[in-house]
């Protein structure tokens, strides 16, 4: 048990991490000589992660197990969850799932701020033709940082904060299945961030977030920072995914049957977490092989040594396409969770929605080569992959039926979270429909690699999935922080975001159709008008995010106190007090009904938890 306030916190973790990193890197360099500089960097970063986690006290429990010391007592477990109770617990290896949820939320917002800043710099470079803002190497690194930070940020944005904070309460559990793994998943993610931010100081990386080899083989040492980042991030996703899905399977309260499980738990915990757990290892394997190419001179991706760039493409997209559903499915789940609450009607077609979400997971691992139609890898497979890709539109389309069916004849309450839910219906339809042209092989031959693709996936991942995050954020913020967000600022954030987002990315569709490649620093005059509009739209979008940031800070500090159930919702997390007590429930709740029985003839104003027999 920690005796001093500073021990086993970031105050010990960071110095131990830095020292371990330096020792590991210098040792490797001393043993391996000058040719081992890439190896020294990789090993140094791995050393940082281990040293940091050691300094946080993450290895105390495994050490106890391995050395057959006595098991921790209940009091020690309690101490690990509470950590003194003050704000300092957010900087320690704290096992309370609510603390981990807040940690994820704040780190996710920081990632969005950094990634968003990179987006502003990209649009600054593209404001006018002539590439006046940055040297090309810097620009390429900014593009790559924007990509990977936003991909990582959107992967964790819903399952991290809300999967951890809300899911256990929603299913009537007192904590996650593996509280220590929960803390580990967050701090492992935390270790990845400084590693990635070292990349620009190591020469950057020229590849974008897709890190295509063999370009990645010849890249400067910033590439080493990138590949270690992916290994740490992938580890975090695996640990978090295993924990969340195990929690949903094993920790449900009595009566929380599969058909009463809130749709958010189905989406964020059962399906998306499983998918992340399944597919991320492919990316990690791709990075291990890349690391071997770079440090030990193997040639997995180098044609002159018998390797193949197509091998990299396949490994990457085996993760890369399912991964967009790891991002999108939790957002679908948020949309479907909030629609009944703000339409005051049951979720339309609950079981079809669950089945569709599951079908998306199944199909998503069979579509990866649609990213490779133009690589020439296996032209005979272009037809089959076109088929699987277009098939996935069937279960995805069900989300829209569920949404419209739930809205129809509801009593629609246009709160800020509901506005974001509705904007999803606009943006994601555009994102989905423009996907048709990319699924169709001949039109993809024209559009692939152009800004049309960039606009398409921003419509799905930003206009779609990120709006799901905003909806979830405005919806659960009162439960997580005990404060209401300012509604006027929320509405300003919403409307400016929607207009600016659509202006930015419709302009990007336009220049993409005209024939402008993506990821370029400079372009010819024919694309000037569209790019100017896109840049102005992006800057306004950035301003909208400043409104959002101000709203978060001011509301969190001195916003109106939140009642325990401000939205009159029926799921369990709204039936417990705010702030949520350490073990969530005084008595384990017994579930006797579905959480979406709005409008049922027998009024059930007390909510699900209080319907439990005493």
């Amino acid at each position, binding site marked *: 048990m920690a005796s001093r306030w500073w021990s086993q916190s970031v105050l010990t973790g960071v110095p131990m991490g830095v020292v371990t990193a330096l020792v590991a890197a210098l040792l490797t360099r001393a043993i391996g000589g000058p040719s081992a500089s890439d190896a020294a960097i990789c090993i140094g970063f791995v050393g940082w992660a281990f040293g940091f986690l050691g300094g946080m006290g993450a290895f105390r429990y495994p050490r106890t197990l391995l050395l057959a010391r006595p098991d921790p007592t209940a009091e020690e477990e309690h101490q690990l969850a509470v950590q003194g109770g003050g704000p300092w617990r957010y900087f320690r290896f704290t096992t309370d799932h609510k603390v981990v949820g807040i940690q994820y939320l704040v780190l996710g917002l920081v990632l969005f701020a950094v990634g968003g800043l990179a987006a502003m710099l990209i649009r600054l470079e593209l404001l006018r033709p002539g590439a006046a803002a940055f040297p090309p190497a810097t620009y390429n690194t900014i593009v790559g940082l924007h990509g990977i930070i936003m991909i990582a940020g959107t992967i964790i944005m819903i399952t991290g904060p809300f999967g951890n904070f809300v899911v256990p309460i929603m299913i009537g559990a007192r904590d996650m299945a593996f509280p220590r793994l929960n803390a580990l998943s967050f701090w492992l993610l935390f270790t990845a961030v400084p590693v990635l931010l070292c990349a620009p100081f190591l020469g950057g990386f020229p590849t974008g977030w897709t890190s295509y080899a063999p370009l990645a083989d010849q890249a400067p040492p910033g590439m080493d920072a990138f590949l270690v980042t992916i290994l740490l991030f992938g580890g975090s996703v695996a640990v978090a995914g295993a924990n969340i899905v195990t929690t949903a399977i094993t920790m449900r309260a009595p009566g929380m049957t599969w058909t009463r499980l809130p749709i958010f738990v189905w989406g964020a915990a059962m399906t998306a977490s499983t998918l992340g757990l399944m597919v991320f290892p492919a990316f990690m394997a791709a990075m291990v092989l890349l690391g071997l190419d770079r440090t030990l001179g193997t040639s997995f991706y180098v044609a002159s040594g018998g390797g193949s760039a197509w091998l990299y493409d396949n490994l990457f997209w085996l993760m890369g396409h399912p991964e967009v559903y790891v991002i999108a499915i939790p957002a679908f789940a948020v949309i479907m969770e909030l629609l009944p609450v703000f339409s005051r009607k049951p979720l339309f077609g609950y079981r079809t929605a669950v089945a569709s979400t599951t079908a998306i997971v199944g199909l998503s691992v069979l579509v990866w080569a649609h990213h490779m139609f133009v690589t020439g890898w296996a032209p005979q497979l272009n037809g089959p992959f076109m088929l699987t890709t277009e098939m996935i539109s069937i279960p995805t389309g069900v989300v829209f039926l569920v949404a419209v069916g739930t809205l129809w004849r509801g009593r629609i309450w246009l709160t800020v979270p509901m506005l974001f839910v509705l904007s999803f219906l606009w943006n994601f339809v555009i994102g989905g429909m423009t996907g*048709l042209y990319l699924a169709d092989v001949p039109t993809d031959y024209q559009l692939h690699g152009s800004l049309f693709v960039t606009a398409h996936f921003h419509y799905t991942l930003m206009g779609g999935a990120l709006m799901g995050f905003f909806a979830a954020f405005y919806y659960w913020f009162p439960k997580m922080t005990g404060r209401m967000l300012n509604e006027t600022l929320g509405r300003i954030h919403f409307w400016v975001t929607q207009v600016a987002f659509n202006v930015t990315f419709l302009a990007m569709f336009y220049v993409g159709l005209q*024939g402008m*490649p993506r990821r370029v620093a400079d372009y010819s005059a024919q694309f000037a008008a569209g790019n100017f509009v896109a840049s102005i739209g992006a800057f306004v979008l950035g301003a909208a995010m400043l409104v959002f940031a101000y709203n978060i800070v001011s509301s969190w500090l001195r916003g109106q106190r939140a009642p325990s159930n401000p939205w009159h919702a029926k799921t369990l997390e709204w039936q417990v007090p705010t702030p949520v007590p350490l073990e969530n429930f005084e008595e384990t709740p017994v579930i006797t009904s579905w959480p979406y*029985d709005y409008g*049922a003839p027998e009024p059930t104003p007390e909510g699900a938890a209080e319907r439990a027999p005493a």
Partner: protein
Amino acid sequence: MADLGPGAAAPGNPRGGAGRGVRPEPRHIRRVLVIWAIATVLGIALVLNLHRLLPGLLPPMASSEAQGVDFTLGFFTVLAVPVAMLVWVFAAYSIATWRVRRFEGLDGPPISGSPVLQTTWILSSALLCLFLVVYGLALLTNVSAAPPGRLLTVDVTGQQWQWNFKYPSRGGVTTTTLALPVNRPILFRVTSLDVDHSFWIPALAIKIDAIPGEVTTVYAMPTREGTYTARCAELCGLYHSYMQSRVRVLSAGGFSSWIGAQERVWGRGGG
């Protein structure tokens, strides 16, 4: 309180369909279908006139492949309009009609699903999907085959950061600008010396990656004379943005005299 145990059929049961006692309101359905039909017609009219509103929306159609691609882009957009409008019109109508200003403690009718509607939705999207696949396969077969006529082969080599074009039937003439005869099928054989590139001529609507150690191929049938641009469409490092070449589609006579001049410069049989 709705119990979801086996056999329960209370309203609010997700399997129960429109709950008993929920009065259907056909006038809303009639109205929204009329609005949907009008919105669809207007939307299609907009799509068909988009190229007038946005000049230069698509690159010049300079090959038979580009004609197929341009037609498909428009055709898919027209198909997408009624589907998108279905979602948007129903959602917007619901919001406009049943919006409440503040929470009043009242709920909507307990409609938790409609087996007929759910089945219809899934079947119709499956049919639409099937149609798109069949259409796409037909078009794919069309563009994958060599166009009729006497084939001209051009070997394209990408390297950081330029394209080289070699005419193997013309004694290996190698240039950095591409010239093609009009109305003659071309076979591009593409490779790379260093990293992945992607050979893209937007005006011809063709693209194929240049992969080190591999040769990838693509056909094109230029149909319109003019000067166009070939670009690299795969991030390939520092000067990716500047990896472009001029593409000239010439008349048969113009091409003969151009390639003849190149051969003289290059030296017949050399290269």
